């Protein structure tokens, strides 16, 4: 694809942010293995009030202020994942806030993180920021400032502070054999965004993906708290299987995922079948292949769907079996109609995660 020159786009109403990104979806995140090399030799940070740190690869850090109050902090920003600036602002904000919700927290404040080229009209930046602000307002929080740097490709996100009760932190290391796994949003945003860049994704599927990415995980967090959930994570760049793997390893258990039960966005399976598989899915394959297995019943397209990097994905929740059905009902009846039971936690086997297909 040839990058469209920025100056050619003068139609601000229909300004296509995706045209600015050559391979954003494919290469915007550092590979996990490379990142670990950079972090490996840094001194470990110890503090009695640091309740959740980077060592467990959890979604956000948690710092205790008092016996009944802790701060949850996280940040996330990335290049455009959709065409429209207002949509992009909302998605980037929902994605950044998601880490707070995955821990069971409530949001308080946020700071804008902006990288933006000087040669793109400021109207576009304004729309991005408006999207972020609206999403934060919807979440019940406030944006209290931010920082802006000039850069060739726009990038936007938030640094977020939330609050949580130190005794009610939901982590990714508390999965127990027998737990049922609930996923609150359908999969496929990585392949859909990639396909959109080359005009392969149909409008209907694209709109569904944008709506899915804009959806806050706030109500999911409330429902988790109501059910006393101890273990959950949100699904983002490592794909469903990568995040399930981190959960399994952190908890010392194994996980079985049923490919037939996974909710999907629109016709993403057809896109993948055409070969519309972003590089991130292959990176996730490399990152997971020693510890995750695909049974023969899982076809190649579903394998790549499980590996597809998600933007602002849903929550993966561990629930005791006796509560799972009611919890799914509650999630479906609120904001997440496509919620499904997608797998189960077992005792430790030789693979952290095994995917199968109950229909084949």
């Amino acid at each position, binding site marked *: *694809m*040839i990058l469209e020159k920025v100056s050619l786009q003068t139609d601000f109403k229909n300004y296509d942010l995706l045209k600015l990104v*050559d*391979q954003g*979806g*494919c*290469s915007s995140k550092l590979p996990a293995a490379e990142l670990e090399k950079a972090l490996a030799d840094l001194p470990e940070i110890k503090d009695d009030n640091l309740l959740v740190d980077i060592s467990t690869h959890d979604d956000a850090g948690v710092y205790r202020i008092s016996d009944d109050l802790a701060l949850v902090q996280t940040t996330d920003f990335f290049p455009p994942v959709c065409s429209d600036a207002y949509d992009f602002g909302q998605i980037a904000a929902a994605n950044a806030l998601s880490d707070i919700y995955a821990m069971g927290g409530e949001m308080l404040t946020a700071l804008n993180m902006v990288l933006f080229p000087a040669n793109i009209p400021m109207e576009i930046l304004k729309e991005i920021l408006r999207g972020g602000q609206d999403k934060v307002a919807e979440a019940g929080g406030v944006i209290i400032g931010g920082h802006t740097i000039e850069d060739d490709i726009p990038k936007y996100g938030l640094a977020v502070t939330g609050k949580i009760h130190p005794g009610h932190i939901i982590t990714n290391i508390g999965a127990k054999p027998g737990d049922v796994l609930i996923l609150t949003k359908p999969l496929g945003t990585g392949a859909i965004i*990639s*396909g959109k*860049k*080359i005009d*392969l994704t149909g409008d209907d599927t694209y709109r569904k993906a944008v709506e899915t990415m804009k959806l806050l995980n706030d109500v999911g967090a409330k429902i988790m708290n109501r059910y006393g959930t101890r273990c959950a994570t949100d699904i983002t760049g490592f794909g469903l299987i990568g995040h399930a793997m981190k959960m399994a390893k952190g908890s010392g258990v194994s996980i079985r995922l049923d490919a037939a039960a996974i909710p999907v966005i629109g016709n993403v399976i057809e896109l993948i079948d*055409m*070969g*519309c*598989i*972003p*590089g991130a899915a*292959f990176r996730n*394959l490399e990152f997971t292949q*020693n510890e995750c*297995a*695909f*049974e*023969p*019943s*899982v*076809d*190649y397209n579903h*394998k790549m769907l499980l590996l597809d990097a998600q933007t602002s994905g849903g929550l993966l929740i561990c629930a005791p079996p006796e509560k799972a059905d009611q919890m799914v009902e509650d999630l479906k009846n609120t904001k997440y109609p496509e919620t499904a039971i997608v797998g189960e936690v077992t005792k430790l086997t*030789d*693979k952290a995660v095994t995917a199968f297909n109950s229909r084949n």
Partner: protein
Amino acid sequence: MKIVDVKGQACPMPLIRTKKALKEISEGEALKVIINNESSMRNVLHFLEDNGITARMEKTGDVYEIFVNKQGEANLEQVDVNDYCEVNYPPEDFVLVFSKNRIGDGAEELGKMLVAGFLDTFKEMERLPKKVIFLNSGVDLVLKGSPVVPVLKEYELKGIELLACGTCLEYYDKLDEVAVGRVSNAYDILNATINAGKVINF
């Protein structure tokens, strides 16, 4: 030969074009994919490998050329992982010997990482050994809890014989902890090495 030129095309277009071309060419026909982006090249190779399709890559300057020969066994519509695990290249006339639980001297941790890395990479090679032999502390690799047991099980699935030295297992008192392969004796192990065209000792 069909030629697909995807120079200058953004990810995942090279993969889409490759997959389409693979469906279009007839059996036995060759396909050449020309790419000038390294990560796209790796993705396409990864995809082909993942679907059990043998490919060869040549690099000239900044341009990569991937050559594929369509064989009957690769059915792109319904491919699954185990299908191509069982597409066996006939084991060749050489054996691997691991006489330590790691590769080389120097840092022990590195040596162990190398063993895992080598075994994992080796199973993807076109040329597979007939047998793999484990001697002295090398028997650690086939014991319960060894990180390479899953990989070695894949070796077995491919028809490669794994022989662990019985005397060594007895010496370390680990006979009942063997998780993969078979406990062997000096006679079989010597025979395997003497009769092999080539012995590679790690």
